[in-house]
């Protein structure tokens, strides 16, 4: 074992006696699980921020409040042109299949917003 490695193990041991989180940071830098020529290092990753919202328009607030918690707006904005009835099915699917807490009273305005926006995309 080389010096830097034993030093880092010492730091690790000290960290271990202090807090659990410090151990994570240390582990990810210095150690891994190895076997037969392959090492799997611990990971500590971050995803880029995503602050995109829906374009302004009547009821954009309701759409922002209901449609951004599970996925980015792009999941919605990159859809092809869809009719109001299709948007209604999608909103109901979000509620029924994926547990989105959408109030019944909000559905018509959400559908209206999406259908209006969608109508600006060429048909195909």
């Amino acid at each position, binding site marked *: 074992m080389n010096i830097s490695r034993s030093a880092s193990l010492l730091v690790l041991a000290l960290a271990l006696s202090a807090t659990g989180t410090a151990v994570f940071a240390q582990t990810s830098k210095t150690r891994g699980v*190895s076997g*037969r020529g*392959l090492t799997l290092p611990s990971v500590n990753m*971050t*995803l880029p921020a995503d602050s995109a919202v829906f374009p302004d328009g009547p009821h954009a607030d309701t759409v922002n409040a209901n449609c951004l918690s*599970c996925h980015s707006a792009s999941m919605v904005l990159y859809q092809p042109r869809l009719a109001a009835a299709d948007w209604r099915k999608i909103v109901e699917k979000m509620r029924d299949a994926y547990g989105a807490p959408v109030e019944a009273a909000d559905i018509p305005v959400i559908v209206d917003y999406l259908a209006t926006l969608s109508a600006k995309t060429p048909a*195909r």
Partner: protein
Amino acid sequence: MVGRRRVIGGMGLAALASPALAQKLFDLGLPGGPGEREITTAYPQKGAMILQRARPPLLETPMSVFDGPDVFTPNDRFFVRWHWGDIPAVINVDTFRLAVRGAVQTPLSLSLADLLRDFPRVELAAINQCSGNSRGLFVPRVPGAQWGHGAMGNARWWGVRLKDVLDRAGVKPGALAVRFDGLDKPLVPKADDFAKSLALDHARDGEVMIAYAQNGEALPWLNGFPLRLVVPGWFSTYWIKMLNDIEVIDAPDSNYWMTTAYKIPDTPLANVVPGTTGFKTVPISTMPPRAWITNLSQGAKVRAGRAVVLRGIAMGGTESVARVEISSDNGRTWLPTTLGPDRGRYGFRRFDVSITLPQGEVPLSVRATNRAGETQPMTQNWNPGGYRRAGVETISVTAA
């Protein structure tokens, strides 16, 4: 982005994105649009990728990456696809465990060291392709992730046979299937966790594997570090990422992601006439043969009356690629191509051919046929989920 919420493009609104924030855009050329996407380099362990969705991430591989020379897709360009937003950011390799439980004699809790050292290591080259790859090109268009062709990649996977792990646990008589679950979780309590199952015989076929390495390195975090199921010849939906739970079940899987999502018409090529309803559906499974030209794209300009080299990649699905042909007359006549080395039955195979084109707009179609004689139809198949696109891909180029 300076302390301001950003409005993204799409739905004909690309113009609204503020110029200061303008990113490099890439046009997927989806019929009717919107097909413009940002190219991002902001994701950990990933190079330039087409940003389909920031959260949970959907990152598409640009077609240029498949232009070789290798048949394997670099890990940092390998496509990314998650369903639910709770993806653990910290994974400690010392404490990580893979559970094997349910209808087994001896439930197991395997460490990564156990998997690396105590089971035979196997290597397999296989394509991982999203069930909805190319969905954005369906006509009529269908809702869902609007992918171009880049929701796929080919890698050399190292890992252990699922069979060996199941045998160590000892599957009980009467077991029907095996369900696989990963560390990612839904953001709402009411929804079904993303999990998939395979019939017991399939799970024990000796080919399905638990991979701990992709192209000789640890799996990228976004591709399922530390373990992912590899189901050769089958669509990606079964290749559970961050695999930490294997449950042998003795009743049919009732999870939403098996019973409702990822279902295709039980018809040849999963094809139905747009607008049809009430057809029988089955869970999606095997991949069909497909092929793409990778050195030219839609609208490219080439020299007329002179030899032009066309090259690309093909896949056979469940069997090796037997041949790849090119047509410049909408499938009336076909020209054979030369295949590159066979690097594994479940992987990509390169092809190239030299062709002389007449002046004008020329459609270039490419057709793969596998060893089982399965070949790509000229007409695209269609279904409302936008799954399992199988038809010949055609690009139109201008020869002058």
